[in-house]
């Protein structure tokens, strides 16, 4: 990074890239075992009432096209592998927003035998949006926080994870 910032062309390119990233966050939505309450709120967020297209947000069907994975619910053991696979199918740079108390710390399902603790245990999460279920405003605020983070140039959870030594598979 340090030798790049001395080069004016590279810094302009970096600025352009982060401008484009902030203004065109395409999302994909995955339910990793939630009660569906959070998903309904996410869909409400995407309706004309809140019209996220005015901020450049678009819902994509394919993980290959998405930048942000919006994920809900405690990760059940059944969906753990799928969640990981969807995350790995996304091209870098990618970001994750965990929506709902369940995604944050298993919420209403705490202590169940069939879940992992939270989304953060399976894939690196950038922003947690608490609430059961969070209102659309809260979800928009969470995504806005993520965009702020990209703007400030702070390393995303993906980058921090890559720097860590690989954890032993449990």
């Amino acid at each position, binding site marked *: 990074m340090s030798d790049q910032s001395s080069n004016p062309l590279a810094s302009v390119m970096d600025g352009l890239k982060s401008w484009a990233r902030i203004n065109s966050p395409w999302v994909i939505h995955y339910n990793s075992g939630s009660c569906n309450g959070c998903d309904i709120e996410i869909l409400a967020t995407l309706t004309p009432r809140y*019209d996220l*297209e005015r901020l450049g947000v678009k819902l994509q069907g*394919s993980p290959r096209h998405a*930048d942000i994975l919006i994920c809900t619910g405690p990760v059940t053991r059944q969906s753990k592998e799928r969640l990981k696979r969807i995350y790995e199918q996304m*091209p*870098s*740079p990618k970001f994750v927003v965990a929506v709902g108390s369940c995604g944050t710390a298993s919420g209403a399902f705490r202590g169940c035998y069939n879940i992992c603790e939270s989304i953060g245990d399976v894939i690196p999460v950038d922003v947690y949006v608490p609430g059961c279920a969070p209102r659309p405003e809260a979800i928009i605020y969470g995504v806005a926080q993520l965009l702020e983070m990209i703007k400030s140039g702070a390393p995303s959870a993906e980058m921090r994870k890559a720097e860590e030594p690989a954890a032993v598979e449990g």
Partner: protein
Amino acid sequence: MSLSLHPLIVLLFFPGGLFLLGSGMFYEWIDRKLVARYQNRLGPRWFQPLADVVKLLAKEEIIPQGVHPGLFIILPVIALASALTAALYTPLLGLQPYYSFQGDLIVTLYLLSVMTLSLGLAGANSINRFSLVGATRTITQLFSYEAPFMLALLGPAIAAGTWRIAGINEFAGQSLWMILTQPIGFIVALIGLMGKLELPPFDAPEAETEIVAGALTEYSGRGFALFRIGKNVELVVGLTLVSAFYLGGLMNPLEFVLKTLGLLLVMAGLQSLFARLRIDQTVGLWWRMGTLVALLQLLAIVIGRALPGLF
């Protein structure tokens, strides 16, 4: 109106290259904004398509397992290149086309189809089942709208008695608007253009609620961006062709902007009015209705032109 420019400028800036890319993005924005307004939303900001493209170009490109890597990389380039080449033969901005010869109408139509063909090949190249279904639908749709679309554009050509786009454009500028003399041809051409661009209600090939993103499911980053730009360029070229033929020709930049935007207004309205057709309904609509009607229209024109000679 015509300008003489250095060939490099023609290819890189105007009317090829930068101008086309810029106007393609601009028309995409207008289209999305109009659809948003029809749906009572605010819609995207004016730089949205640019941000999308820059972001996609800056993203990682994943070449999935099971594809032919060479084809995977080259197909988006071919698609974009053919769309850009097609633009050289059309009266963009109301100016004379830069290259023009007898029969360039047919060449342009084929160049526009190459884009769809590479889309289909791109889908068939991958082992993803959604891509495969999308590719099948793309090619099926190609076979259904191509004939009526071509017939609808042949109508003005026969009326003008020339196969040069520039000649037809001139003829259209001097005579009565052909939307009045050949209304059926206009409707078929407009709907054919929507089918070509896979806009709703003809978006079964990329129906995101059933088959994720159709043929482009496996594309990320650069390839996806190039396909998107190619589609935008095709939108501009298609709008130019239809409005030059049916809306009284394009003689100056003002006419170009007004007529193509007017056409886009109608197209955006149709997009938000109709729900998606199933692929068999699309094919049925085109072969049972579109082709027959366009053929009748063509027959009428041929007879109309032949009759005065007989008596």
